[in-house]
């Protein structure tokens, strides 16, 4: 098993948090994982991004130039990273902020109105969790239950009261993609 | 017994001739340190941090554990050593080029942190070991090998007064400037050392003693004239006295 993903969006959309969460869940599921936040010159352009690799064997490069998958939270991130996605790769588009028409045919795209779904659950800021739930459902790289269980290890104790809601957001994203996969 | 011993060196002083020039005050300063360490019962608990300059060989004359610091860095080395061995007595012995020029950052910050160390600062207004170059403490008008026409305030700035600076820092517990030009002043110097050392032993803070000293060779003077120069030229610019003593409330 090998999966890598670039998670990208505006600063403040919580892309680093879901990157951490995905990698942590991967570790707890027994895989090797790496997480690297964007660093240096790549930081220009208004997007924040991080890269996660999950693998059954030891991981070489933590930096991925041709990713197998993407979680795209805003339009500039799509413009920047879709061209790098491998043919046949998988991407989650936050259709609340990204034009789904821009998705290329050479890749598999799942659109998720993450902001709206999160809004419906009571807090737009959980859009990142909706997107991650969608991603986990689409790729199956880690069990969704493992991701939910890992929330308490990644979210600071100050916000622990938000964990149940975040778990709901993960589930909502997964459900949304499950419907598209049928 | 036909002879009566009236003057002897403490055991901490290693019995060998020093490499210092005739009239140099390092010997006096070493001896004062040795006497105070002995009287305070600190000899076997003392860690000496030497510096670069004529006094680099202090370890040849004082029978205590010692480490040699790079030029100017003795207060940083002493910080590390004291942090590693808080129950030991740690002191640095530094000249004016070492402490007031290249090591200015280290001495100021060690004092400001209030490191529980003691600093013996020998100020003879010149780089002695390297052959009499201008020091940050060289007085305006004083000739040196790098200001042969005399220090010029416009070009070189004025002599830096360290005790005034160290005395103004929060972590300093005791700071005094003394002189080694007369018996009276030497006695006062010994008291100052004891006071500064006590600040470390009691855990009060950083102790600093500046000793105005003679360097007849680089001043191109005989020892007596050199002593007179301290009295007549140095003390007026570098006033003697206590610049800080945290044990005396309301006094500075």
């Amino acid at each position: 098993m090998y999966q890598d993903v670039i998670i990208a969006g505006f600063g403040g959309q919580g892309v680093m948090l879901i990157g951490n969460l995905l990698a942590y869940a991967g570790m707890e599921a027994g895989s090797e994982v790496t997480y690297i936040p964007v660093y240096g010159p790549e930081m220009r352009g208004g997007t924040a991004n991080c890269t996660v690799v999950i693998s059954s064997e030891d991981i070489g490069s933590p930096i991925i130039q041709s990713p197998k998958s993407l979680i795209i939270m805003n339009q500039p991130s799509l413009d920047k990273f879709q061209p790098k996605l491998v043919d046949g790769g998988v991407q989650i588009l936050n259709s609340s902020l990204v034009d789904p028409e821009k998705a290329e045919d050479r890749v598999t795209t799942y659109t998720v109105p993450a902001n709206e779904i999160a809004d419906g659950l009571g807090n737009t800021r959980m859009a990142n969790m909706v997107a991650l739930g969608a991603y986990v459902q689409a790729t199956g790289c880690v069990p969704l239950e493992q991701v939910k269980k890992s929330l308490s290890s990644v979210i600071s104790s100050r916000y622990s009261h938000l964990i149940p809601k975040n778990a709901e957001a993960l589930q909502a994203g997964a459900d949304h993609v499950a419907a598209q996969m049928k | 017994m036909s002879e009566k011993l009236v003057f002897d060196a403490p055991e901490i002083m290693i019995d060998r001739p020093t490499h210092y020039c005739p009239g140099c005050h390092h010997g006096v300063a070493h001896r004062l340190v040795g006497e105070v360490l002995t009287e305070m019962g600190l000899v076997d608990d003392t860690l000496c941090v030497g510096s670069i300059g004529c006094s680099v060989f202090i370890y040849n004359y004082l029978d205590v554990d010692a480490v040699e610091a790079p030029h100017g860095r003795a207060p940083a080395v002493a910080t590390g050593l004291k942090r590693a061995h808080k129950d030991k007595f740690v002191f640095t012995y530094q000249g004016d080029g070492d402490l007031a020029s290249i090591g200015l950052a280290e001495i100021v910050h060690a004092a400001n942190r209030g490191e529980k160390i003691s600093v013996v600062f020998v100020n003879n207004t010149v780089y002695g070991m390297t052959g009499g170059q201008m020091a940050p403490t060289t007085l305006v008008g004083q000739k040196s090998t790098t200001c042969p026409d005399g220090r010029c305030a416009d070009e070189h700035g004025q002599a830096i007064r360290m005790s005034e600076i160290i005395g103004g820092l929060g972590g300093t517990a005791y700071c005094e400037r003394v002189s080694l030009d007369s018996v009276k002043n030497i006695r006062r110097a010994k008291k100052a050392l004891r006071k500064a050392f006590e600040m470390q032993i009691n855990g009060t803070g950083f102790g600093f003693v500046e000793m105005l000293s003679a360097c007849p060779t680089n001043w191109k003077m005989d020892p007596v004239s050199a002593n007179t120069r301290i009295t007549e030229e140095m003390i007026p610019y570098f006033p003697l006295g206590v610049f800080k003593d945290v044990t005396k409330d309301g006094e500075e």
Partner: protein
Amino acid sequence: MSKTKRIFIKGNEAISRGALAAGCTCYFGYPITPQNDIPEFLSTKMATVNGEFVQAESEVAAANMLLGAAAGGVRAMTTSSSPGVSLMQEAISYMAGSELPGVIVNVNRGGPGLGDIGSSQGDYFQSTRGGGHGDYRTLVLAPGTCQEAYDMMIEAFDLAFKYRNPVLVLADAIVGQMKEPVTPWEPKAADNHGAEDWCIDGAQGREKRLLKSLFLEDGALAGQNRNLQSKYEAMQAEARADVFECDDADLVVVAFGSIGRIVKSTVRRLRSEGKKVGLVRPLTLYPFPSEVLRDLAKQGKRFLTIEQNCGQMVDDVRLSVRGIADSEFHGHMPGDLPGSDDFIAPIIKHLED
């Protein structure tokens, strides 16, 4: 599970935790990116082990505090990044000359000058050639993973005391900033290899001791240099490298640290396409694992050295295989973030040459 639970941490935190596991009780540092996680972590953690944390006024002071604590015979370290490590070279030279053990971590960033805060291997020469003035060497360990960062800190302290010599851990911004699972472990007991017999801690009931690097008497400095050189000769036994897919390889890539692990991905991909390429990843840079490379050269392998600099370790690869083989070089410029795709073309080019 018999294994200790894995923790998910940054390389910089792995370095910090490794140092604590190694029994480090004195930390001295000065802020500089990309290693600030280390002083930030240790600023609170040192107190929990009754240790000392000092934020120094400069890297010059931090390294000299390290010298002082090392003279006291305790396990001490400092960490910095390239421009700061340049400032530490004075103290490191004095420590080597005075034979004082201490650990210096360099989370290498781009240079020269202020450079950038991204990853670089531009400090290879500075690290492996001594770095400061005089004829001396420091042992140099090069972690490529967060686990290695943790493990190598424990090893670094042991080697420092074993040889009474400064040890440099040369990480980089990638290793420092990435997160990976790390299995924490604690060595049985810190072995300071008889530090109590040379350190200065007060001459109670023994002769006084003197730690110095000044040797003015006739023949004394020559004697000290001979002594140091024989020590460096003995250190050669510590050379280590990770050898991957080299048995049937036509071309062996030599790469260290984070570039080594990135190239491993490239090698895996090319292997899946049937290309006969292998990888040697030096884990110690001084001593350099010359024997490993020389043995491969004797088998007729060809070599390509890949570094994130303009050609430094390649000198050591060439010296290792001299008289038998040579090494080509591919340099990835510091300032550009490297990825495994970057190395496909250079490897194929030299494989087919």
